[in-house]
């Protein structure tokens, strides 16, 4: 038996009709076509499915879709603004922080949440914030460099009024 409810994702309103056991990840990927969030383990171990619920990172593969009803969901597709990359996205690309790219959406959501709560993080802060996101390609070095650089860029962009 399917349940019908409303989901607000990246500012868009959707009405979905899914079985109660449907996870938020399945709903995003297979109902709404938002395939940016990835399934790497399906049990909350790898972090590739990380999205925001009301601005806080959650593992969408172990969150029921219904949980997100009447809350704001943000996915990797919602990071860029009017076609302009979030400084984190730009830095990750430029610095070689995305090799295969499969963990990247989850890394971005965890790192972007960090920069919202801590605009001037230390390397240790970044390592802590990413501890729930497994990357198999990079050894994390270039990801951490990118996040630290993006923090600087984002602060400058915000003080110049160029980024919300």
């Amino acid at each position: 038996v399917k349940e019908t409810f409303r989901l607000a994702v990246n500012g868009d309103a959707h009405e979905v009709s899914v079985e109660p056991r449907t996870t938020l990840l399945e709903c995003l990927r297979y109902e709404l076509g938002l395939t940016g969030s990835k399934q790497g383990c399906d049990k909350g171990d790898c972090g590739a499915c990380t999205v925001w619920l009301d601005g806080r990172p959650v593992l969408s593969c172990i969150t029921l879709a219904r949980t997100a009803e009447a809350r704001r969901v943000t996915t990797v597709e919602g990071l860029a603004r009017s076609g302009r990359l979030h400084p984190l996205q730009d830095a990750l690309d430029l610095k070689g922080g995305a090799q295969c790219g499969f963990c990247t959406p989850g890394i971005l959501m965890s790192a972007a949440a960090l920069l919202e709560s801590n605009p001037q993080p230390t390397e240790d802060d970044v390592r802590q914030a990413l501890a729930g996101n497994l990357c198999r390609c990079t050894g994390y070095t270039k990801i951490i460099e990118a996040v630290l650089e993006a923090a600087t860029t984002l602060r400058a962009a915000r003080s110049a009024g160029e980024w919300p």
Partner: protein
Amino acid sequence: VAVSTKSTDRPTATQSFSVIGKRNRKVEGRRKVTGQLLYTDDIVLPRMLHAKILRSPHPHARIKGIDATRALALPGVHGVVTGRDFPVPYGIIPWTRDEYPLALDKALYIGDGVAAVAADDERTAADALKLIEVEYELLPPVFSVEEALAHPENQVNPFAKVGNVSKHVHLSFGDVEQGLAASDEVVSDTWFYAGSTHAPIEPHCAIGDFGPEGLLTLYSSTQVPHYLHRELARVLEMPMDRIRVIQPGVGGAFGGKSEPFDLEFAVARLSQKTGRPVKILYTREEVFYSHRGRHPMRLAYEVGATRDGRLQAVRARIHIDGGAYSSFGLVTTYYSGQLLCAPYRMPAYEFDSTRVFTNKPACGPKRGHGSVQPRFAFECALDVLSERLEIDPIELRRRNLIGEDTRTVNEMRVTSNGFPQCLDAVERASEWKKKHRKLPYGQGVGVAGSTYISGTNYPIYPNDMPQSGCQIKVDRSGRVTVFSGVSDIGQGCDSTLAYIVAEELGVELEAIRVVAGDTDLAPVDLGAYSSRITFMAGNAALDAARKLKRQVREAQAAVWDVAPDRIELAGGFALVPGDPERVVPVAKAFQAAEARFGTLGSTGSYNTPGQAVHGEYRGGTIGASPAYSFTAHVAEVEVDEVTGIVTVKKIWVAHDCGRALNPTLVEGQMEGSAYMGHAEALFEEQDFQPNGLHRGPSLLEYRLPTSLDTPDMESLIIESLDREGPYGAKEAGEGPLHPSVPAIANAIYDAVGARVTELPFYPGRVRKALAARRGPWKGR
């Protein structure tokens, strides 16, 4: 077929480039950071069904019968396949085709595929699996190398020629007996390298789509579309020209997707049976059981040297636990011996390697295939030797350098060799001289070196065709499209081809489109394995681009009435240097060429140099490569004497990649390799319970290092400018992993005087090694 690069194109240190050597973006990078790059599971086709595979719960069992009647009767189920749907065996190595897509007569390990069901959705397919009745007759399993050799009558793999021996290789070069007798010191010990698995974050996924014309389109997260293409044709008994293999974005592979898997055959046959597209996405547990990862090896070495530290002879005896199938095992067995003969000169060398079958998931190629394990043992033996001879470990290595333009004792041709510079770089950057035997007790540094191939000199199936092909289309808009069969698995090879073509044709990177990973559209490239793409596909792209460049220069030369060789193509322009009157956007020059020669396009090829690069003995072709990379690591560790916990503080990685076509990508490979080696040293183990069940088939229990566990790493790029590599480039993807484990082991010894010989270096093993130490550590 173009064979390598002409001597006139020999790379030099003073060459200047517009694109090569710059920290450019990757061509698909912005699609990755926005979540827009499509991986196989992101693809949804109309009317697509989902399938699941039923797996054997027994490690060794004869299949007496399968009854799928109840499963087929379940609403939403559309088709079932079993072993009987695939009577033709397959295998990545043509001489060892010893597995079936689904078990035909017997299941060889817990997790071996037995049947597959296609249904409306995954959950219905999973429910249907429970309704399939399989009658098993249990057979005695063997789980260890010793059991397998002691009980040939309990044969695991019926294709084995003798008992449970998968492959035996014995090769000898020079007089080892005499070399050991002439040695003042002989280190003789045994090491054990534990199995580990690739664990790419993307699980394997495939979609089969049989069209009404009888054409099969197969989407897969493979890293070898061409070999998959061949085996699909063989198993499905279809001509290759009716099959199209598409490799979408691949979320990591590391060797774990370099042969066909049950899911690809299953979706193809199920699609054929149901007339609808069918997808299978492995669960994470299935990825662990499908495996094909690092082989556990027990390695016994005798390493002899004279008093002044010159190696005299090396002898190895190696036992390899292969799991249930051959996979690449024939090659693994050769590699375990053949790839040890550089970067050090050894006058005599002998190895005896035996790979056996056991009732466990098959092992295969993991980053640094077959040579990471012997490298660990050998570099640890060198550390013991340096201590006994009282020679600094880096100095000991320097005394045995093999040098450039030479032959190894097993007759492999070595061309460029930046290993001495690698040693210098890690010694300097790590402040080795201030640290080795000088840090406070509990802290230490260790060094190790290695070499690796830039592709194999011979393809997996014998043929005289190019290993890499490339086609380039240039049109009047200024756009350049590069068609190549390469497989980008995150290493950035699509971008590498774009950099090369942009450099040659003078266009901006944004004007390049790369069409890859599609057997209908692109010429054959053998795939992303053995670190071959930069060297081989790079040369093919260079060949194709230079042919077009000649046409463009000739046409523009006629327009300007100058000699063609005065025209440069760079940065989006065609120009005569120093002549402000003669500069036009490069698209203009393309138009001149199109007007002069007609529609523009070219092909390029690369094939290996052939017999000139290896010895003429049985097995001499395996391990032969057109060029070798070199690496040195220094690791710095802290060891807690009470708990036995080892913490790696930093790893300095120096790697000779020939030339860094993009330093960011090369560093990424160096850091990723060092991370993965460090993980094998301290964290990961593909381990099984006594009944054959995996001990922890999840990303929680199988311990991948997190951002908090991974040490600082410093990449030091060494450029030896190989004369046959594209602009001098060699591999960077696998070589830098090799020294990780021995450098850490040797650093543990420097820290606390304990020799760890068994992976992973768990706290208990370190404590055991500490207990074996006689008295306090007098190393300093």
